[in-house]
């Protein structure tokens, strides 16, 4: 009942459906826009206003948090040599963005990140399709994956170093290993979730196999794939940096941070570099979520296909 649901939305304890949050949920609650549009069809200030308010609040929130952190770092609670002032870190971050050496190193990392992500997409999709299309295979391999998947990828770095040596191939191998899982699981759950009714409808209307594949199957699986990529992306970045920081590479953002720490002992650079790494991850998340929303607006806001 539209009226009742609009009423419920008006009551003080109302809430928006939260975006399915997991290892990589987007910065913005993907639910707000679509849910706002869907729920209060008849009444209410339109969802647009809510989103605009949301954006201002986000910005204000960031400013407030930064201000608070600045105050804390200046208050004498921490030693500025070990925990630099927030303003200093922010300044360094800006400086680094135009520092040629830093940029070169970061580019190395980004290269490995994106390439590794692409590889894991290929592997994840391929394996996912094979396993997902057969119920028996799916159930069987679950047990195996339950043992393999929990192995922390970082634990493979020492071994990997002995086998593959330092460099890009090590990074790619580990990124592939770690980032493949979300994609694989999401593809499998996509196949499981294919709406039988949609499929049968297409068959009743005598829509051919290829057409069915393109117009029913793919659109159903795309959202899950998109979620998988969104979750896998930060994992891939973190792995690339981890490899670098644990001696698996001679170049990269991680190496740069390590040098700043051990070499010059410049805490401000360490913080700045780390913050940039975090920003990269968060931005990729946000960008992918925005792309998803743009390309797949019809996908329900409740994304329970999110990977666990």
């Amino acid at each position, binding site marked *: 009942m*539209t009226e009742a649901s609009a009423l419920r939305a008006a009551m003080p304890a109302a809430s928006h459906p939260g975006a399915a949050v997991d290892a990589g949920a987007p910065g913005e609650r993907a639910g707000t826009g679509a849910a706002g549009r869907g729920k209060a069809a008849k009444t209410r200030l339109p969802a647009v206003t809510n989103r605009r308010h949301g954006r201002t609040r986000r910005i204000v929130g960031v400013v407030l948090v930064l201000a608070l952190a600045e105050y804390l770092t200046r208050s004498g609670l921490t030693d500025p040599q070990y925990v630099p002032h927030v303003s200093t870190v922010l300044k360094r971050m800006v400086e680094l963005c135009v520092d040629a050496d830093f940029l070169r190193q970061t580019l190395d990392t980004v290269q490995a990140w994106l390439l590794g992500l692409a590889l894991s997409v290929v592997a994840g999709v391929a394996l996912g399709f094979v396993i997902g299309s057969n119920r028996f295979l799916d159930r069987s391999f679950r047990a195996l994956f339950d043992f393999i998947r929990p192995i922390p990828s970082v634990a493979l770095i020492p071994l990997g170093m002995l086998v593959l040596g330092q460099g890009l191939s090590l990074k790619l191998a580990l990124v592939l290993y770690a980032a493949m899982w979300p994609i694989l699981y999401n593809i499998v759950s996509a196949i499981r979730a294919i709406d039988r009714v949609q499929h049968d409808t297409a068959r009743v209307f005598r829509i051919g196999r290829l057409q069915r594949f393109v117009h029913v199957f793919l659109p159903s699986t795309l959202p899950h794939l998109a979620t998988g990529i969104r979750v896998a992306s930060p994992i891939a970045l973190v792995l690339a940096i981890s490899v670098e920081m644990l001696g698996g590479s001679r170049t990269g953002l991680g190496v740069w941070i390590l040098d700043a720490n051990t070499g010059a002992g410049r805490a401000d650079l360490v913080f700045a570099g780390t913050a940039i790494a975090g920003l990269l991850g968060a931005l990729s998340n946000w960008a992918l979520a925005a792309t998803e929303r743009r390309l797949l607006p019809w996908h329900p806001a409740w994304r329970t296909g999110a990977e666990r």
Partner: protein
Amino acid sequence: MSAQESSVEPLRALLRVENLSHAYGRGPQAPLILDRIGFEVRRRQIVSLVGPSGCGKTTLLYSISGLLQPTDGQVLLEDTPVRGIPPGLAMVFQDYSRSLYPWMSIERNVDFPLAAAGLARGERRTRIDECLEAVGLRGHEAKYPWQLSGGMQQRAAIARAIACRPDLLLMDEPFASVDAQTREDLEDLVLSVRKRFDMTILFITHDIDESVYLSDRVIVLSKSPTCVQDQVEVRFPHERDQIGTRSHPEFGVLRAHIASLIRGAGAAVRQTERQAVTAGIS
């Protein structure tokens, strides 16, 4: 015809709604949903609110319960203005699957408000048993809501409401989500609850037959901005019967009258501007 029971009760009203209005949003341009609604409900009456879909029935009920503050007018329960949720009131929602708590057993769901009110364990036990038995759910106490059918879940919601021994029971289209046969059973359940617990009931429905069958008075609402089009007295005795009562000629007259009011094209006509039609039975 069965023995006549007077459906006119002691004169003091349990519930009085006076000039109730509600607008969404702020400012003079805000659309008016409820427009100066007024009526009263006396003890041991069953009064129903019927209207076309989209009229502010649920808004009205939420205002009466205190869940919503109306922008104008007031609601008086036992002569006390309603601010927030008044004591002595219980509610049954349409969507039982979202109103019963899925992680609690039926028993626990019924017990929950009683425990929150601080009742002693013995008293709670008595009430739970009594109410579950009254709604016909004895033996299902330990089940979880999803294990029961829709009708049974709604019975559980009713049990929860009456366990609180409210003066006034509000029901928001309680039977809209169940099938027709279950609906008939539940309607009779409402009658038996009124009889057994001396309860006063105000409920919303879009089903005209149901409103005539159950009520002592049917309040017919208009399209938005909603006002009271008419208040139709139903003078059947309190003892009613699905087949007998519904096939009574008076039933058809009442139903036709209400239906014509609801379907009436054009602007709503206030009750004050037309003769109230009361049908009597002799």
